[in-house]
């Protein structure tokens, strides 16, 4: 628990529990200027993406969650929750963040994944 950890690739934070997020829904985590959207699927898998659609920066956290994807509320791009990449004919990618579950607690790594 010290500041030096923030300089490595690991910056895990406890953000809450699964029950804080509605199934097939999302909540936001603020990290300075960055907003991270944390999603919960129907089968209780948790994913985290930067809350910005690669198309026009739409807030993905406000979209409809379905089948491992989220549909952006602005122009209906469909983004994979796992990889952050746009599905179908659209091209683009949103940064994704590692997430770990410990029981029902959700830990989020504030450093984006590769």
């Amino acid at each position, binding site marked *: 628990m010290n500041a030096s950890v923030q300089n490595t690739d690991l910056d895990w934070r406890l953000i809450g529990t699964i029950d*804080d997020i509605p199934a*097939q829904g999302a909540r936001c985590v603020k990290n300075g200027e960055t907003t991270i959207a944390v999603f919960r699927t129907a089968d209780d898998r948790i994913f985290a993406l930067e809350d910005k659609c690669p198309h026009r920066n*739409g807030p993905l956290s406000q979209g*409809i969650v379905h089948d491992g994807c989220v*549909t952006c*509320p602005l122009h209906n791009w469909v983004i994979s929750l796992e990889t952050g990449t746009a599905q179908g004919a659209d091209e683009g990618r949103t940064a994704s963040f590692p997430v770990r579950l*410990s029981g029902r607690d959700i830990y989020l790594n504030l450093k984006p994944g590769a």
Partner: protein
Amino acid sequence: MSRQRLVIIGNGMAPGRMLEHLFEASDQFDVTIFNAESRVNYDRIMLSPVLSGEKSFDDIVIHDDAWYASHGITLHRGQKVVSIDRDAQTVTSEGGITAAYDKLVIATGSNPFIIPVPGHKLSGVVAYRDLDDVQAMKRAAALGGRAVVIGGGLLGLEAAAGLKAQGMEVTVLHLMPTLMERQLDPAAGYLLQKELEGRGIEVRCGANTKQILGDTQVEGVELEDGTVIEASLVVMAVGIRPNVQLAQEAGLDVGRGIVTGTDMKTSDANIYSVGECAEVDGRVYGLVAPLYTMAKVAAAHLAGATDAAFAHAETPTKLKVTGVNLYSVGEFGDGPELEDVVLRDAKRGTYKRVILKDNKVVGAVLYGDVADGMWYNELLKSADCVEAMRETLIFGQAHQGGGAAADPLAAISNLSDDAEICGCNGICKGQIVNAIKDKGLTSLAEVRAHTKASASCGTCTGLVEGVMALTLGDTFAKKAEGMCGCTDLGHGDVRRLIVAKGLKSIPAVMQELEWKSSGGCAKCRPALNYYLLSDWPGEYVDDQQSRFINERVHANIQKDGTYSVVPRMWGGMTTSDELRAIADVVDKFNIPDVKVTGGQRIDLLGVKKEDLPAVWKDLNDAGMISGHAYSKGLRTVKTCVGSTWCRFGTQDSTGLGIKLEKFMWGSWTPAKVKLAVTGCPRNCAEATCKDIGVICVDSGYQIVYGGAAGLHIQGTTELGTVKTEDEVIEIAGAMTQMYREQGFYLERIYKWADRVGYDTVKSVIFDDLESRRAYYERFVYSQQFAQVDPWSERVSGVDKHEFNPMAVFGLPNDTTVQEPAE
């Protein structure tokens, strides 16, 4: 051959099919049809789905008016033929129409057998034979109560399932010890009874009806053992009797039916008979396949000399009750020369029995897993010796020849060219393959149009598609006509099935209608959520996660992720207090823009999501509620100042607009709904491009609807003029309800009306006061659950998670680094 006059008595499926064959072979006939019913030719096999609500009458029409016109057929509707003069070669109808014939076809079908117990003529006792019966049953079902179905055969059980789907309590009375004893052995009959009982249908076998109780209307049924069952509807489905009266009076040979040779000619060489009324080789038929064979034979003989002859064949039976799979063909009695091979799997509810005689298949009864029914039927028809595969026969075709993979196409590919694919229409695999190749067919609709395969009951659709896939290879892409990629069902089908099957949750819809994705998608989920909300008011719980963000947070998302907030201003009227409160909110929350909207209210643009509840609270405190500017629901009611101020105003258009808005706000609809009330025909409130508009005139209120002024521009259509405000309100509510019940998600009123027809809307909502009232009352009922201000709900804490971040990091004194437990 010179032109001939062909007269047909009856307009059912058999003569309809006969004409199709005849027109293919010859154009030498001038055809006249007498039809006792007033309808065109429709598919009687499909009455059960119409009863259960899974299909509409239009879906089951075989020949529409255009078909009769294009073949120059004279169709006398509602004209029952009462006599045949064989010497003069004429027939005469009840209405006095006489037609001369060179050739006559009698296709009078059959009459339902009504058991002559006391009370059989009471009102509420119906047969199950034609569309009139179905409509009578649906009317009775609408009143609820219990229906007693007498007869546990094919028709009776389909009627029972249909009435149950329509919401009635249902009891089936069957004289014999097990259900469908003519098609099923006792074991399969038992499984079927269990299945039906599991669906809440009471089954009493060995029940002998003594009398039907009641003075003028059915009140109950008394059995021989003294049991009395209360009922408001009794359906007699105990069998049919060939309708031979006309032929008998004309002096033709008559046995159980009208006696014909295998060429379908009666004892008079100029008169043919086809269908359920005909008797060939001592047999009469009720299933459609042999009737279609009769039609083909008769057409061949009419068209010219031929050796076409009718031959008896076993017809497989299927029960058209959604979710019940059973198949039976051939004989299955017990006899010393018959051998059984039986497979039971109680847990899966599967029962398979193949009956052998001299190592040949003579019958099969399948319950649960019926995939191999066709294969057994093929073995039965080919009369091949099955000794070599006897040990694996019962496991089905996939287990022959070294256990082929469970690839459905492989099974179809193994079928011989003369394997029957469509039992209703007697279409073999080879015929379908040839039609696809010769005519260059690429879609299921085309294959149905050209071959009739899967065009009747439709249970073989998958097989037909399989044959298409094998024939066309990769070029065959199953046409996706569904509401989204998750289903092939269209919006109309889904809506009908939700009601018919009583589906009350999104998972239930996806499970029962076999969604292809695990959790739907952003297209189907909002649609399903709306359909369920609309169909089950007060029961269905709104699924917030299936709503588009605007409806979830009750504000409109903007391009930068902020929101706009629009409070309701009833009829476009506001006050200094409201304006002052809005001004204060703008200052307090630094709202960047304030705009007057096209719907006569004020839009606050650029509100941060986390500020929404506080903004709403201040607006609520000043007496304002959500304007639903974001919803698929009632948006605005635009008005002009009307007779209160305007020198041209004829009525209080502002007052009426406010009443309409206060009555209709909060309702969810397939797409947005905008209204306007204008005080005179100068139309300052622009009522003639709204979903529903009211134009005040001196004598009352002219109601118009179906306008659009967005991507598409369309003026409204007039509905009619009424005298009072109350009538306007009733009609607006009724029309909105009809649209709510029938509209496809995102389909505006003008598109819905284009689809169902403006005449239909007018007759249901304007002309028919009773149906108008019924729709209005359903609207009023659903409004009691809808008129809750979503803003004040959220101010009081509902959905709090929506508006606050889950966690905040990156602040100057942030020291929350933590390691997750591994």
